[in-house]
């Protein structure tokens, strides 16, 4: 295995005083693509939020180590600057901030440097083309009135612009039509062009994975990892469902 980028050790997470994750272990190496599957309500999104540092998700035990550094107690902005990105299952609408200004502010805060407008707009335009997004969306308020598909594309657009070392994609493909899934998948491939780009893809379907190289697959149920394997596990789950693991 390549250098470890993300290490989750015995993670227990509470939401609203209820334990959701009961001790989860997971390791993602630099440049690897992992897939996380599991039934609805298993705690997949919870894991994503906890790694990103959502204060509503309390870590009661265990650690999150990123790039060799224990970040369990860090705020989300610090984790983001360290290189973690979360594509939200339900992206939030923020009125009064345009998509473009938002990405530019985020870039400036991450680098501490001013981002030149002209070069930024050029790069943004190129990324939007890859994602087949109408350029007018750059100046629309962040996610406000975007369709489900447009919201997900806007998430991948942020991924391409912010260039994190680890991207957690939480059901980015859910609710999208075939064409949109293909486009999003092209965006993910674009991100993977950087050989250090690492991915944890939470999904129910194989479609988004078709064109991607997958290094490992994990199955989460009831807040616990119940199976891990290579890319073939995706296929197996696709054909037979989760029952075989749950029965064990």
């Amino acid at each position: 295995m390549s250098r470890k980028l993300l290490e989750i050790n015995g993670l227990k997470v509470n939401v609203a005083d209820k334990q959701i994750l009961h001790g989860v272990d997971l390791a993602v190496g630099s440049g690897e693509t992992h897939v996380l599957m599991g039934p609805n309500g298993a705690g997949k999104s919870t894991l994503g939020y906890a790694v990103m540092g959502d204060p509503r998700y309390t870590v009661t035990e265990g650690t999150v180590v990123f790039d060799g550094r224990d970040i369990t107690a860090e705020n989300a902005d610090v984790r983001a600057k360290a290189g973690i990105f979360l594509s939200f299952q339900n992206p939030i609408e923020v009125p009064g901030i345009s998509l473009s200004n938002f990405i530019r502010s985020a870039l400036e805060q991450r680098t501490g440097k001013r981002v030149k407008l002209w070069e930024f707009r050029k790069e943004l335009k190129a990324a939007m083309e890859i994602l087949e997004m109408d350029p007018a969306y750059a100046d629309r308020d962040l996610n406000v009135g975007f369709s489900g598909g447009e919201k997900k594309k806007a998430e991948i657009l942020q991924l391409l612009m912010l260039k994190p070392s680890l991207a957690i994609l939480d059901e980015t493909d859910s609710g999208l039509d075939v064409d949109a899934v293909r486009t999003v998948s092209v965006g993910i491939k674009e991100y993977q062009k950087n050989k250090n780009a690492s991915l944890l893809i939470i999904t129910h379907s194989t479609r988004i994975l078709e064109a991607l190289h997958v290094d490992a697959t994990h199955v989460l149920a009831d807040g616990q990892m119940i199976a891990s394997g290579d890319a073939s596990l995706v296929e197996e789950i696709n054909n037979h469902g989760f029952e075989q693991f749950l029965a064990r």
Partner: protein
Amino acid sequence: MKEKTQVNDIDRSMYDFRFENKDAYKVHEGLTPAIVEQISKEKKDPAWMEQFRLQALQIYNQMPFPDWGPAIDGLQMDNIVTYVRPNTKMSAKWSEVPAEIKDTFERLGIPQAERKSLAGVGAQFDSELVYHNVKAEVAALGVVYTDLESALHGEYAEMIQKHFMKLVTPRDHKFAALHGAVWSGGSFVYVPPGVSVEIPLQSYFRLNAPGAGQFEHTLIIVDEGAYLHFIEGCSAPKYNVANLHAGCVELYVGKNAKLRYSTIENWSKNMYNLNTKRAKVEDGGVIEWVSGSFGSHVSYLYPMSILAGKGARAEFTGITFAGKGQNLDTGTKVVHNAPETSSYVNTRSISKDGGISTFRSSVVVNRNAENSKSAVSCQSLMLDDISRSDTIPAMDIRTNKADVGHEAKIGRISDEAVFYLMSRGISEEDARAMIVSGFADNVSKELPLEYAVEMNNLIRIEMKGSIG
């Protein structure tokens, strides 16, 4: 003003600096006929104006203080100095303005703003204008932009007598009467028929003297088919004695004319801002108010639009930000007094650290205003549990042929949204400031860029240290 955008850490000291103007001419505190006569003499008023002042003083003495809004007990009228003349004459050359006063305005970004994006600038320091200048090409169109005092003696004297305090009369309320008695400074603008002033005129009011009042009068007449954008900025350093601002703005919008009146008010937090603004709009004319209220300890501010001609229209876009120790009572009034008139009101109010922000609106649709439309929308954002935000809409509709709507929403910053922004690398403080700026977007997108930047800086100042 653009210069400021490069500065990352903006603190209030930018507005809080002050200097001691020892040589300034002042009248005594308090208010007597003798003081009013003294002001009148000092200003070389025409006879009618002196009479007007003395009458207004009588009315002032008869009228009660308002008892329906924020408390103004802290305002002891006997202690307010009504007239402070800086020790300088008005100048049309920036180089002739005294160094210390110039320094004040330079720190506020006034001359840079003029060079960049304004057709004309007036700068008032305490009671008098110290600088006034209009670009030659604008003056060549016949546009008049001058201080009200010299206008009282010049070519437009009659026009002023005809309009001065006719929209807002001294009987309107106690502070309008006070204004009538002791007003000084302010601007007169006249835009001739059909002339469109493409870049804004600006006026900046700075109250420097402690315990003083500022009572500037702004009179703008936009004649038939003409267009003007007028911008008003205000600030003052903080003293621990009360200062009073009781200005008056009268706007006359002619047939098919359009006037946009933008204000970013950032008075210091010892200021009682009891300002009166009113516009009268003739057939097919448009008044657009853009109003940002950030400073002051107490504000009473309800710009009023009188839609007097058929098809006249009023738009009011406002934001009020009440922080610690502030009680800002703002809103707008519209009177539909002719058929097919319309009004759109879109306001946001923000309260924080125990601040109180009250939005009042009053819409009157008279019987003769058939087929008129009015839509009022107010959104409030409370940043914590100790702050307050209220909406008090009033409507008086006297025809059933009118389409009137009102909508109010009160909310808080969602933790989810803060986390979402933070997950991209934005600090919590900045995430909150971004959300608040976004909320105030109704106003910032109506302002020229420099002012929008300025406003967002003000929001950032207010949001600093807001995380417990």
